[in-house]
């Protein structure tokens, strides 16, 4: 039995994580002590966070229910909000029983808003554009990945796999011994499984999960990839910590991220640059960092990786069909100007100028003498052996 329990006074949050299956309630002294202390300390609502509790036997649940019951009796105005996870299949069902104790107890499943732009980015309508993006980046990454340590026969995890097309390409090109692809968007996973079935690919385990609280065990994978994802989380260091955890000692973690303000194009370079600088500000407003790319090295060092390798590449309109590039930019305009800018409450005048930069980028991409680019930063680091 190994679990951790921690009380965060700032958020009035009691976090219980790990596996809790004692033989007797006597083994739960620390839980009892911390719970009682927390319940006494809070004003209003105590948040009981069990999102990362992956095993809870009935002995432990019985003890926890007793603690909750006594806390509600001793402090009648106390509210307890239990936050469960949809990633752990039994969690919401089991904890829902606690709501029977008192009307002051609520149980909610934490399965939306993992990150600020989730509604937009996990929208099933975004799928075609994600495929096009992968097609364009793969031309570069298939050459880059071996430089960062990916070899045939490795155990590989692709975290935040989206629609799973990158995992399918890895599977075909690098024949891993095991390939787990994990994402929190159910429409994307359903699509990934369908594509894999259509193409007769049986070797990829597509699993549902949140990158910051994976059910995967420690030290499982030789190579862990996480592409274009740290930049959408408001706390990327938590994701990196999980990537580090599931990576084998001596294995490597590979991440890609953008610095959108460096998107470029000619002609109409000035308008393009203005718009992408505003894209960065817009993401920042939603607590996402689309400028994270060059910061990858620092994040990896601070997580504890060694032998950090870093490089960048530019996806351009000259990679294959320029229309593909134009389609991606159009999709960005639809999301950034059509949804996020509107949600921020930007003026019509701003929105018009904002949209123009995307249209100018498309113009540059399709112009017979034009050049349009989208830069991406790659970083990888080794987990110390």
């Amino acid at each position, binding site marked *: *039995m190994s679990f951790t329990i921690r009380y965060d006074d700032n958020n009035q949050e009691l976090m219980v994580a790990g*596996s809790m*299956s004692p*033989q007797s309630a006597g083994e739960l002294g620390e839980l009892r002590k911390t719970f009682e202390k927390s319940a006494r300390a809070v004003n209003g609502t105590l948040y009981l966070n069990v999102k990362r509790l*992956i*095993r809870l*036997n*009935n*002995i432990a*649940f*019985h003890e926890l*229910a*007793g603690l909750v*019951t006594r806390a509600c009796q001793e402090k009648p105005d106390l509210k307890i909000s239990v936050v469960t996870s*949809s*990633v*752990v*299949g*039994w969690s*919401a*069902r*089991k904890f829902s*029983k606690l709501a*029977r*104790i008192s009307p002051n107890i609520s149980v909610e*499943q934490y*399965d939306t808003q993992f990150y600020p732009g989730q509604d937009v980015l996990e929208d099933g309508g975004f799928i075609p554009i994600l495929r096009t993006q992968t097609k364009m980046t793969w031309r570069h990454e298939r050459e880059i990945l071996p430089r960062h340590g990916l070899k045939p026969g490795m155990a590989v995890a692709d975290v935040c796999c989206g629609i799973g097309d990158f995992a399918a390409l890895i599977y075909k090109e690098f024949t891993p011994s095991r390939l*787990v692809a*994990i994402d929190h968007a159910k429409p994307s996973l359903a699509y990934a*499984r369908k594509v894999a079935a259509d193409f007769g690919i049986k070797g990829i*385990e*597509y*699993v*549902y*999960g949140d990158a910051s609280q*994976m*059910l*995967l065990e420690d030290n499982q994978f030789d190579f862990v990839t996480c592409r274009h994802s740290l930049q959408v989380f408001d706390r990327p260091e938590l994701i990196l910590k999980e990537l580090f955890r599931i990576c084998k000692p001596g294995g490597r973690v590979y991440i890609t991220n953008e610095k959108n303000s460096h998107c470029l194009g000619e002609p109409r370079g000035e308008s393009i640059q203005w718009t992408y600088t505003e894209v960065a500000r817009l993401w920042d407003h939603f607590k996402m960092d689309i400028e994270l790319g060059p910061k990858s090295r620092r994040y990896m060092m601070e997580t504890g990786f060694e032998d950090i390798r870093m490089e960048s590449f530019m996806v351009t309109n000259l990679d294959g069909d320029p229309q593909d590039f134009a389609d991606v930019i159009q999709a960005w305009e639809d999301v950034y100007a059509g949804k996020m800018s509107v949600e921020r409450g930007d003026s019509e005048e701003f929105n018009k100028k904002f949209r123009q930069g995307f249209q100018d980028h498309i113009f540059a991409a399709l112009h017979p003498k034009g050049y349009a680019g989208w830069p991406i930063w790659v970083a990888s680091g080794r987990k110390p052996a």
Partner: protein
Amino acid sequence: MSADARLRDGGADFKPLFEIALGVETFASNWAHCDKIATYVARMVSHNRTDSLLYANLFSSALNELLETAFRAHRGGGDLACHVSRSGPVDRIELTIPCDEDLRGFYARAIEESHGNNVAERYVAALLADGTLDPSIGLLELAVDYKARLSLEPGEGNAVRLVADLALEEMPA
């Protein structure tokens, strides 16, 4: 065929997936064996389910409750065996537990209770009750939260065979 139809059909074709057997004294020498066996077996049988990790977590939680029940309610002599077989969406766990007359009665009553109309209320009442935990709580949980079909068969000698049919992929999140 849906899981329900498969469960109604006594002749469903269950193909063996995995079996583990160990002396019941060895099993009962360490409580951690329940968790370790449950985790190991779940990992073995879950890899080709639609979502292998979600499935393994559910399966191991269910099996852990069965094993914890057997840990508390067994008699010495003989092997504790865990056999897992599959028919489409349904996985069948058969747990052979060395018993005596009293324990056979305990398992028979618990299984009967798990088929009762008020099993859900009975489970919640047991969970939230003061004092000692009802030893049949794990079986009640399987019937209520995991929608398991539980049955009991005589095993060899004094043993009983506890059978749990689980259709975990069809459970709502």
